[in-house]
Structure formats: C-alpha cells, structure tokens
C-alpha cells in the first residue's frame, strides 16, 4: 500500500489510467486472532490503529456487521472540543483534542481537522458565571478558554439575534479557539487504512452472533461467517452495546436512544465557528459544502430505529431560528438519525468486564465522535495491559454502585424522567 503524498497525487493526476489502490484489503477471516474487535466504527478502527502503533499488537481482526462508515461515525455533527469540567472528562477529552491536532499526519490521511473555534452563547448573567467557572477549570488544566462579553460576541457572530425583544438575550459567551470540526468519513477511512497497513484484518459484513465463554473467560466469537477464536475480545458497538453485551450475559447501565442531525441547503460562508447555545442543547456549524449542520437533544424514548420523530425536527428548527433569525428562510435538505448508548450519568465506559479477557467500550451519549482518538488510544492500552490507563480509569462499569458518577451535564438517559 503506497503512502499518500504530493508526489503520489501528481503521479495519479498525470496518469489517469493509473488507478488508486483500495485503501484497505478485504481478507477472509482467519481461524484465530490475538484480539478480535467487535464493531468497525470509529472507535473500533481507532483501537486497532493504536493497538498496532502503541503496543505492537497486529494479529487483530475488526468484525463489522455492515460496511465501514455505515454507523455513527458517519452520522454525527463532526464537532471536536475539550471544554469539560469534571474529573476524568477534562483530561480525557483534552488528550483526544491533542490527538486530533496531529491526526492527519499520524494516519497519512487528510482528516480535514478545522480548528475554527467553538463559541457557546450565554443567555443570562448567571450563565456567564457558570461559563467563567468552566473556563477557569479548563485553564487550570492547560486547556484554552476565553470569556467573551456581548460586544465581542457581536463582532464574532454578527448574525445572532441582538434585538431588544430577543427571547434569549445574548449576554456573552465562552470560546475555545482550538475546538472545531473534522471530516467524519475521513476519520473512519484514515483509521481503517492505517490499521490495515499495519496488518489488521478488517472484515466487513460479518455479524457477531454470540460469544464463546469457558470458565468465565472469553475464547472467541460466533459470527455470521463462522467461529473465530480470540485471545481477547473487545466490544466497540455503541448504539447496540446492550444488544451485543447481552450475548455475553451482561446487563448494562445503558439505554439506546436516537439523536437526529440536520443539514440545510448550501449557503455562502457565514458561520465561521462551531456555535452552541446556552438556552437549549443546540449546536451548529457550516460544512465546507456550505450546508448548516446542526443538532439538539435525543428524541427521548429508547429505540433502535434510525428514524427520528417530527416533533424533534420542529424543536431543533425553533432553536436555530431563535438564535440565528436568518435561518428561518433556509430550507432543510436532509435529516438523519443515529442510535447512541445513553448512560445514567452521560459519561462513557472504557473498561474491563466481569468476563475475563472481554473488554467494553460504549455508553458514548452525545460525545462519541470527538472522543474517537482518545477512546481508541485508551481502549488499546486497556486491552494490551489488561488494566485501564489513568485517563480512562474512572470510565468503569461499577461507578454507579460506588457513587463515582461523572454527571457532567446530567443529560444521560434521564431526560424523560425529569
């Protein structure tokens, strides 16, 4: 497999008959692997990449039920950021953002990481106090954050509703300049190509149908393409974590919910940042094609259908128009849904399980995409060493019984219970 470079680009441009090689192989599954990763999404692919790169483990298979890029890695709103303020989250997501910053070079694949900055708009003086606190915590942890007053926000985001009768007055904002967006498909393809070049077998259209467990220890998986033996098995199927873990006899603090995302018709460049809102959960950025990409809350009842409800489309559109009145005449082009694991505290799991040699990565709630690099990095460490890294030690399954919840926003699956 050849390295991508300016030279290879020129060579292919000058010789149109020279085909670009496939980015990854399509191997038949072997009878046995050191590590089998269940799920070929962003997190599974990243895990394989870091298993090879950081730990020298390359006898690895990734089993994907559908095709690479078909799940949540291609269904998110592509935002990356690290403005967290609680314990383990702060360090973990900052580690992730640092990996994002070098990702295109690391993978030799242009992930189009665009650090355009994220501005979270405050709608009350009290919220400015909350943002000041969050910014202070971030800065104490070496993360960039700045507080903007109303005048500074007016310069940065001149298209918000600053009128006297605005329902939600703009009081200021918190700004993380290093936040931004990345090209989600490229992240999947880049990790897949890199893992494949290291010798990892990516096996698409191969559904795991059961686990082989002997004396409390996992020894392999049953799949739609036969039995595959494994020294270690790593689950990374967020959205379907309960469904897969149940086959291993596990009952988890996870519910599957649908989150919708939306894109409008293409516009001339107008929104130059990722803009979020303090009045409701709402986040919007403008893609390179010009469409406004945005999202809000989950629909609010557990489901595995990737189809959203109209009421949520209306809610999110109301948010868009309240914050940015110009969007009222923009037409919605597409909307889609992704199924995500919701945990009671809104934080994920990257941990060992009660079954020996079976590992769990899931429960990503709203934050799976931005976590992709650090998730793979720490999960690879957990699998290789059979113990968590300091960065993911708190993302354990037993944190609820021990009283160590990480309820950053308190927006786990409780929304319907509040």
């Amino acid at each position: 497999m050849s390295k991508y470079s300016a030279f290879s680009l020129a060579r292919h441009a000058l010789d149109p008959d020279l085909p670009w090689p496939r980015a990854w192989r399509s191997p038949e599954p072997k009878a046995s692997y050191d590590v089998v990763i269940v799920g070929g999404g962003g997190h599974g692919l990243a895990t394989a990449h870091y298993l090879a790169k950081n730990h020298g483990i390359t006898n690895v298979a990734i089993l994907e039920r559908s095709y690479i890029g078909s799940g949540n890695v291609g269904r998110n709103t592509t935002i990356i950021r690290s403005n967290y303020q609680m314990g383990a989250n702060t360090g973990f997501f900052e580690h992730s953002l640092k990996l994002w910053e070098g990702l295109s070079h690391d993978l030799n694949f242009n992930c189009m990481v665009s650090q355009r900055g994220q501005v979270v708009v405050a709608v009350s003086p009290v919220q400015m106090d909350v943002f000041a606190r969050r910014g202070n915590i971030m800065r104490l942890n070496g993360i960039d954050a700045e507080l903007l007053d109303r005048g500074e926000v007016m310069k940065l985001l001149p298209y918000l509703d600053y009128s006297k009768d605005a329902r939600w007055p703009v009081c200021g904002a918190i700004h993380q300049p290093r936040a931004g967006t990345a090209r989600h498909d490229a992240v999947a393809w880049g990790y897949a190509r890199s893992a494949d070049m290291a010798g990892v077998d990516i096996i698409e259209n191969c559904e795991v149908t059961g686990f082989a467990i002997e004396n409390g220890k996992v020894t392999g998986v049953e799949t739609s393409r036969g039995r595959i033996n494994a020294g270690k098995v790593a689950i990374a199927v967020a959205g379907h974590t309960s469904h897969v873990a149940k086959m291993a006899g596990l009952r988890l603090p996870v519910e599957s919910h649908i989150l919708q995302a939306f894109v409008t018709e293409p516009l001339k460049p107008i929104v130059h940042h990722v803009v979020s809102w303090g009045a409701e959960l709402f986040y919007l950025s403008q893609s390179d094609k010009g469409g406004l990409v945005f999202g809000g809350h989950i629909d609010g009842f557990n489901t595995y259908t990737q189809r959203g409800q109209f009421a949520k489309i209306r809610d999110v559109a109301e948010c868009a128009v309240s914050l940015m009145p110009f969007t009222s005449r923009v037409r919605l082009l597409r909307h889609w849904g992704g199924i995500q694991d919701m945990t009671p505290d809104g934080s994920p799991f990257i941990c060992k399980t009660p079954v020996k040699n079976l590992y769990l990565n899931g429960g990503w709630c709203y934050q799976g995409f931005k976590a992709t690099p650090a998730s793979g990095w720490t999960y690879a460490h957990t699998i290789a060493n059979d113990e968590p890294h300091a960065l993911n030690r708190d993302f354990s399954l037993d944190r609820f019984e021990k009283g160590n919840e990480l309820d950053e926003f308190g927006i786990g699956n409780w929304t319907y219970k509040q």
Partner: protein
Amino acid sequence: MRLACPHCGPRDYSEFRYGGDASKQRPPHGTTGHGTGDLQTWHDFVFLFDNPKGPHLEYWQHVLGCRRWFTLTRNTATNEVGEPK
C-alpha cells in the same frame, strides 16, 4: 409515531411524556426503619436496563391531554405500538 390514549384515542406522540420501562418492579424498602433495603437490588433497579431490541413494555402519560398514565408495548426495532392498557 401515534399513540392511542385509552381516554382520548389516537394522538401524535408529541402530546405524550415517556415514562420508561414498565416491567421493572420497585424493590421493597428495608425493614430496619431507615429503609433503603439491599443496595445491590436498588442499584440494579435504578441503573440497569434490559434495553431490548424488540417488544418493550413501557409507561406513557398523555401529558398535554387528559394527563392519564397508561402502559403499552412498543417494538423498539420498528416503533410499532400495541394497544394501551
């Protein structure tokens, strides 16, 4: 999605509030007087979910209508809803 309220008949789902898994049984309180009972049982009741991909017995409330609570079975793989009870 449309749900059939036992009192008002079929209405849009946005008139309803979701109440979660109706098959869970609330554990009994302890007998010591301070009464939280067995912690593991309560942990499992509060934090663990069957989260099935298929039929799911659940609570709904017609919160923007008659405010009646009821249960129904919904298939979480298709959002097909059964008769309310």
